[in-house]
C-alpha cells in the first residue's frame, strides 16, 4: 500500500538522520533516563554536557521520560524488552521495587569497585546513603536529588497575628494554636496546611517521633513487614487534623503538592512540605518567609528523632558491558566531586550528598544568609538514626500511599472515625505488602 511505503520512507529518513547525528563511533554512549522537569531538567542537561566536555571516552545522553512513575515504568518496560538504559532515576517510593529485582540492577558499590573507581561509602552523609543501602550497608543506588520535610511559614502573617516570627512553633499543639491565631487575623480559609499528605503526616511523622511505621525496621530488614500506623499516637494526630479541618484551622491541600501555591499566594500562612519547595517560595512569595523543622508532640519520649528523605536516586541497570559500567562509574565519581555537589546544592536547593560538600558550603558562610537550606540537613542529622528512623522500604508503596490518602480523606470528610480510617489503612496496606512479598520472594 502506498501508505506503508510512505511511512517506510519516513522511517528510513529518520534512521538516516539518527545515524548522521551520532558523533565519532569510538565513544561509548551512556543512556540516562530521568524525570526532571523545569529548572531541574536544565541541571540534568548541564551535568551531562559538562561530563561530556570533560572527557572523550564516554557520552552521557540524558533523556526525559516523564513523571517519576512514567520514568520508572519506561525503565521497567525497556528492561523487559531487553534495552534498558544504563542509568534510571527512580523516586524514593520505588526503592523497594528496585531492590526486590536484584537480577535487574547492578549495585552501585559493586560497580564502583569493579570499575576501579575510588569510592568510599563513608564520604556520603549517612542519613542520605543509609536510605539507599542494604541492611548490611552496601550502597545500591546513587543518591541524586534528596529533600526532607520542613515547615514553611509566612513571617508577615506571624507579625500581624502577634506571633514571634523568629520563634516559630516547635510542637504540634503550638502549631495548631498559632494557626488559630493566624486564622483569626486574615486567613479565614486556612490557618495551616500540609502538602504530600501521607509523606508528611504518616511517613515523616513516624520517623520524626521514633515510632515504627512498619515492623522489621520499616521493611528494611525484610519484605515480611507489617504496618503499624494505627498506633494511639497516629490516631491522635489524625483526630487533631480532623477536628481542625472542621474549622479550617487546618485545611486539607491534596495528596500531592498542587496545594503549595496556597502558601506562596499568601492564603495559607503555614505549609508543611518538601524542602525542595525552596525555589518556588524564593521566586513567587511576595512576603517575608522562613522555614523551621517539622513540629512534634512533646509528650512522645525522644521526639524529635531525625527525619528521612524524599526525592530520587540513580539506579544502574544490570546486564550491561564492563566498558559501559566503567563509564557510569566515572560519571558517578564526577557527580560526587565536592565542588560540583556544593554547587548543585546551592543552585537547586536539593541536599548535598557528601559530607565534604556540606562542610564546604557551611564553611563558606552560605547558610548564614540562607538558613532555609540547612534546616532539612539539621533534621536529617538531628540524632543517630534508630531502627524506626533509618528510612523505609515498603513494596507497592505507590498504591499503599493512595490507600492511606483515601482513608485519611474519609476521616477528614467525616465519613469514618480516625481510628477506623487508620485501621482500614493498615489492613488494606498489609494486603499490598503480602502481594509484593509473594512476587519478589520466589
Amino acid at each position, binding site marked *: 500500500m502506498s501508505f506503508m511505503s510512505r511511512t517506510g520512507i519516513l522511517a528510513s529518513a529518520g534512521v538516516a538522520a539518527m545515524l548522521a547525528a551520532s558523533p565519532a563511533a569510538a565513544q561509548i554512549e551512556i543512556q540516562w533516563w530521568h524525570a526532571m522537569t523545569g529548572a531541574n531538567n536544565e541541571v540534568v542537561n548541564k551535568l551531562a554536557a559538562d561530563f561530556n566536555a570533560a572527557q572523550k571516552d564516554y557520552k552521557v545522553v540524558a533523556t526525559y521520560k516523564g513523571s517519576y512513575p512514567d520514568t520508572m515504568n519506561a525503565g521497567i518496560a525497556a528492561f523487559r524488552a531487553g534495552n534498558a538504559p544504563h542509568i534510571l532515576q527512580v523516586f524514593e517510593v520505588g526503592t523497594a*521495587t528496585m531492590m526486590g529485582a536484584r537480577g535487574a540492577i547492578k549495585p552501585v558499590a559493586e560497580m564502583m569497585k569493579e570499575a576501579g573507581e575510588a569510592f568510599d561509602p563513608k564520604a556520603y552523609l549517612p542519613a542520605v546513603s543509609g536510605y539507599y543501602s542494604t541492611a548490611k550497608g552496601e550502597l545500591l543506588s546513587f543518591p541524586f536529588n534528596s529533600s526532607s520535610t520542613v515547615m514553611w511559614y509566612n513571617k508577615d502573617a506571624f507579625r500581624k497575628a502577634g506571633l514571634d516570627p523568629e520563634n516559630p512553633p516547635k510542637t504540634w499543639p503550638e502549631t495548631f494554636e498559632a494557626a488559630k491565631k493566624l486564622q483569626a487575623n486574615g486567613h479565614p480559609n486556612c490557618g495551616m496546611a500540609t502538602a504530600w499528605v501521607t509523606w508528611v503526616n504518616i511517613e515523616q511523622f513516624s520517623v520524626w517521633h521514633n515510632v515504627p511505621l512498619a515492623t522489621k525496621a520499616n521493611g528494611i530488614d525484610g519484605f515480611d513487614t507489617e504496618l503499624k500506623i494505627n498506633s494511639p499516637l497516629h490516631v491522635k494526630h489524625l483526630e487533631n487534623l480532623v477536628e481542625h479541618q472542621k474549622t479550617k484551622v487546618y485545611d486539607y491541600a491534596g495528596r500531592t503538592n498542587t496545594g503549595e501555591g496556597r502558601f506562596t499566594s499568601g492564603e495559607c500562612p503555614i505549609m508543611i512540605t518538601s524542602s525542595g519547595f525552596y525555589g518556588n517560595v524564593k521566586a513567587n512569595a511576595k512576603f517575608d518567609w522562613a522555614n523551621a523543622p517539622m513540629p512534634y508532640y512533646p509528650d512522645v519520649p525522644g521526639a524529635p528523632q531525625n527525619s528521612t528523605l524524599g526525592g530520587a536516586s540513580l539506579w544502574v541497570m544490570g546486564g550491561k558491558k564492563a566498558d559501559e559500567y566503567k563509564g557510569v562509574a566515572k560519571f558517578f565519581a564526577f557527580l560526587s566531586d565536592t565542588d560540583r555537589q556544593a554547587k548543585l546544592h546551592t543552585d537547586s536547593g536539593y541536599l548535598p550528598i557528601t559530607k565534604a560538600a556540606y562542610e564546604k558550603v557551611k564553611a563558606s558562610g552560605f547558610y548564614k544568609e540562607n538558613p532555609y537550606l540547612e534546616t532539612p540537613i539539621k533534621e536529617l542529622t538531628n540524632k543517630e538514626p534508630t531502627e524506626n528512623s533509618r528510612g523505609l522500604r515498603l513494596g507497592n508503596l505507590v498504591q499503599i500511599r493512595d490507600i492511606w490518602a483515601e482513608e485519611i480523606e474519609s476521616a477528614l470528610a467525616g465519613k469514618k472515625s480516625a481510628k477506623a480510617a487508620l485501621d482500614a489503612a493498615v489492613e488494606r496496606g498489609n494486603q499490598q505488602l503480602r502481594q509484593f512479598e509473594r512476587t519478589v520472594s520466589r
Partner: protein
Amino acid sequence: MDKRAIFSGKALPYMLLLPQLAITIIFFYWPASQAVWQSFLLEDAFGLSREFVGFENYRTLFQQREYYDAMVNTAVFSSLVAFFSLSIALLLATQADKNIRGAHGFKTLLIWPYAVAPAVAGVLWIFMFHPSLGTLAGPMRVMGFDWNPLLDGGDALALVVMSATWKQVSYNFLFFLAGLQAIPRSVLEAAAIDGAGPLRRFWTITFPLLSPTTFFLVVVTIVYVFFETFGIIDAVTGGGPSGSTTTMVYKVYSDGRLGGDLGGSAAQSVVLMVIVIALTAIQFRYVERRVQY
C-alpha cells in the same frame, strides 16, 4: 443491515481489508492476547519470576469492595458524560448548521478546545477549579457553593464529569456537523413548504436522518468514557477523594502502574473488555435496528 446492491469479488475484498487487518493483528491482537495471558500470572514488575495462578487474580479482584465501588462510579460517570456530551454537541451542531453570519467562526471556536493537549488540559482544570487557587473557585464560593473537590466526593465527581464532557463535546460536535451537512436540503425545504415548524422538522426528519452518525457517536463515546478518561481523572482528582472518582479504567491504570500488580491489572482489563464488547454487541444487535440508513 446489509446493502442490497453489492459487488462480488474473490481476492479484491481481502486485499482491501489487508492493511487494516495486518495492523490490527500485529498491534492489537498480539499485545491484547498477552494481556489476557498476563491475567493468569503472578509476576514481579521486571518479569524475573512468574507463576501461573489460574483464576486467582480474578478471584482477588471480585473480593475487593473497592472494585464494586469502581463499577458503580463507572456506570454513573459514563452515563452522565455520554448524555451531556452527546446532547450538548447535537444542540450546538444544529445551531451552527444554520445559515447564519459568522457560523464559520463559531465552528472554529467550538472545535478548538479539542486541540488543547490533554497534558495541558489537566493543568488548566486545576487553574480553574482548585478549591482555593482556581480562577472559578472564588466566584463559586461567593455564590455560596462550599466547593471542595479535595474532600467532597460529589464535587469531585462533578469536576471529572465536566472535564470529560468538555473534551468529548468538540469531538461529537464535529461529527454531528459533518452528518448534518450530508442531509439533503431539498427534503427539509419540502417539509417547510408543507408547514412543518423547525422543531417538528428536527424530530421527524433531521434526527432520523442523522441516526447513523448518532449511532457511531454513541458507540465511540461509550468507548471513550470507559477507556480514555483515566488521563483526565489522574490529572484532576487522582481518583479521590476516598476513591469516589475511581472508575474501572482508572483502577486498571493505577493498579498496573509501577508494575505493582501486573496480573490484577490485566485481569481488570479483561473484565473491562468483556463488558464493553458486550455493550457494543448489544448496540449493534438492538440499537442499530432503529437506525435508518
